[in-house]
């Protein structure tokens, strides 16, 4: 019996473990049973919500706060959050739609919404009367006369400048009512460039490929009197994008790079982020989201100036991320209830404080840190209210945006303006024709 020296045999150990495992298993089973029973007792309906902000802790915690409040406030629905990284959010949604696997509540970028609505991925919102009365126009997503989406914030673009620099060069500080005219702006760029103090007079953000181009640069075209598409019919871009105004814009655009006033398409992303702060660039065309960081680096000297007026008024792009409801949702009522819950001023203000975007209502702006009276970014609320123009409201926007981006990049790199814009028009028109007019008129 030498083997019994250690008190218990191997077999006993095994048996003992088995016993333990059995016990553990029964405990687990019991818990599972309890959990499933509690589920039955509550009979809560789950609402899935997909959001584009994966990786942003601040956004996540604010959104989870809103969701928790909603889940606590009523017993019928539980909202469950699923986060996706922004860069690829649209692909994820399109893939889900193709697979017939959309959530109840989707987060959608403003200009993309008409495409999804037209394709039947989304259903109109059904909020209570007047719920959106105070909202900035850019935060409301409309398609064919119905509201499909609403945003908790909007974004805006302005010219970043240093007061000291403008004063040193004797340059007038423009206002919302009296912006720089096109000629004035051009002369200022020449003057700043000629001073030799800067690598470039103006940083347009050419490093930010993609949606930035149509969002940030189409307002210049509109101010010249052109547009990306004829908004009266949404059936062609002929004469609007490649008309006289379009060509005039294109020539000016090309000259910015020919004269070396702005860095071109190969601008380094790093320079985009640090160039203005480091003093490489005199002026910068940038969104309000960069405002807080730049303010921290530059201080009170920083100015946010309105877009120049090239003859047809100043405009800036509008519409950011918004909430909508998928057409496949069986719980539209709950989804609407959640969205209505989420668009309260306090949440709008919380998001604004957290990520620096413009709260979608005046009431929320007053509550917010940066956009209330005397707030550092207050000027943006005015900009958004006065100048915001949504990007073309058509399902064809996905193509329009890409064609426009390529045309602007090509022109910046020296392509013939008229030919490039003609080609862009052809491509946009072809796409509209291929899609039988995207639901506008008969084609």
């Amino acid at each position: 019996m030498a083997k019994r020296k250690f008190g218990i045999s191997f077999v006993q150990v095994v048996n003992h473990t088995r016993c333990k495992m059995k016990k553990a298993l029964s405990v687990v089973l019991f818990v599972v049973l309890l959990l499933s029973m509690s589920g039955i007792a509550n009979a809560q309906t789950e609402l899935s919500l997909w959001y584009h902000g994966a990786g942003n802790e601040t956004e996540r915690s604010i959104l989870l706060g809103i969701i928790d409040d909603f889940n606590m406030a009523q017993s019928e629905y539980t909202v469950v959050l699923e986060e996706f990284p922004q860069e690829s959010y649209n692909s994820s949604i399109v893939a889900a739609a193709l697979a017939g696997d959309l959530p109840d509540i989707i987060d959608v970028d403003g200009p993309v919404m008409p495409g999804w609505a037209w394709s039947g991925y989304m259903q109109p919102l059904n909020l209570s009367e007047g719920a959106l009365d105070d909202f900035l126009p850019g935060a409301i997503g409309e398609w064919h006369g119905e509201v499909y989406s609403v945003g908790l914030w909007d974004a805006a673009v302005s010219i970043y400048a240093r007061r000291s620099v403008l004063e040193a060069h004797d340059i007038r500080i423009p206002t919302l009512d009296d912006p720089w005219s096109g000629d004035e702006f051009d002369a200022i760029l020449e003057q700043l460039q000629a001073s030799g103090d800067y690598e470039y007079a103006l940083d347009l953000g050419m490093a930010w490929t993609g949606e930035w181009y149509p969002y940030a640069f189409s307002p210049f075209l509109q101010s010249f009197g052109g547009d990306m598409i004829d908004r009266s019919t949404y059936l062609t871009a002929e004469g609007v994008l490649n008309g006289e105004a379009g060509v005039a814009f294109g020539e000016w655009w090309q000259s910015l790079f020919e004269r070396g006033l702005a860095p071109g398409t190969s601008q380094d992303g790093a320079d985009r982020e640090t160039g203005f702060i480091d003093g490489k660039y005199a002026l910068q065309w940038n969104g309000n989201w960069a405002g807080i960081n730049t303010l921290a680096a530059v201080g009170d000297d920083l100015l946010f100036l309105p877009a120049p007026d090239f003859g047809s008024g100043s405009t800036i792009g509008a519409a950011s991320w918004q909430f909508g409801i998928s057409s496949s949702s069986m719980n539209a009522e709950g989804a609407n209830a959640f969205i209505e819950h989420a668009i309260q001023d306090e949440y709008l203000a919380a998001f604004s404080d957290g990520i620096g975007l413009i709260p979608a209502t005046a009431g929320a702006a007053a509550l917010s840190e940066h956009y209330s009276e005397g707030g550092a970014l207050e000027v943006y609320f005015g900009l958004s209210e006065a100048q915001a123009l949504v990007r073309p409201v058509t399902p064809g926007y996905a193509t329009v945006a890409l064609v426009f981006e390529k045309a602007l990049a090509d022109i910046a790199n020296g392509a013939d303006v008229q030919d490039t814009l003609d080609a862009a028009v052809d491509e946009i028109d072809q796409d509209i024709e291929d899609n039988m007019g995207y639901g506008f008129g008969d084609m």
Partner: protein
Amino acid sequence: MRSLSFENQQRLLIGLRYALLILIAMIFIFPIVFMVVSSLKPDMQLLRDSGSLRAFLPVGDISLDNYADAFERVPMLQFFFNSVFTTVVSVAAALWLNSMAAFSFAFLQWRGKALVLSLIIATFIVPFEVIAIPLLMVVNSLPWLGPGGIEIGWLNSYHVQIIPFIADSLGIFLFYQYFRDLPDELVEAARIDGASIWQIYTRIIMPIAGPILATVAILKFLGMWNAYIWPLMTIRSEELRPIMVGLQYFFQLNTAWGEIMAYLSVVTIPVLLFYLALQRAFIESIATSGIKG
């Protein structure tokens, strides 16, 4: 002047050879050094340094903050586990299925073999990007035995990240090329000794396939570890996402370059280790096999 002795000449040659090797090594390693060094710097400094040789030097405000922040932003351990799991399973399955198919092509006679082989090589031509959408539709209509019985649709799972990529034509092709170069006597002798085909595959061919196993394993490992587009299309839950998708978490309104560099460093190290581990096996197997000639 005295001419160099033979021994010194040899030494000089070896010295020159090493100098050349080191020079080339620097060309290959500098972006990776840049990545690792940058991961230790705050964003502003990183971007400023990127234009000078300071980019390669851990100078200035050095810290591990970026790593801490990156870990906070991305559920890295979960992603890491997911990637390891999908990668290991895929590599193992790929080695088995592809080598088995290649063995069949190289040593067995069956009708249609030549045609099938050329079709396989033809499929190698199709870049993944161009079939991603139809592939999505295919996997979405396939059945799977889940806990609740047979379910339709493979989305949001581990197997949708693994099974479509197990067999690959390049892998089969590489194995086939290697097997074809092996002497026929090897198989014939075994047959005469009465070995079954399965035994020949497992006991004779596979043990000497070390180099090509290592090559295919590395290739498959890289493909799976760096998977990016496909998981974005098919995975909804954070619990199932692989590690490269995490890269997207850093491209926010203000891109967190320092954290990206930290994340990339963490992502890249396991792959280097995997390669180093296999490289040894790969060299040893060549040294010990000595099968040719």
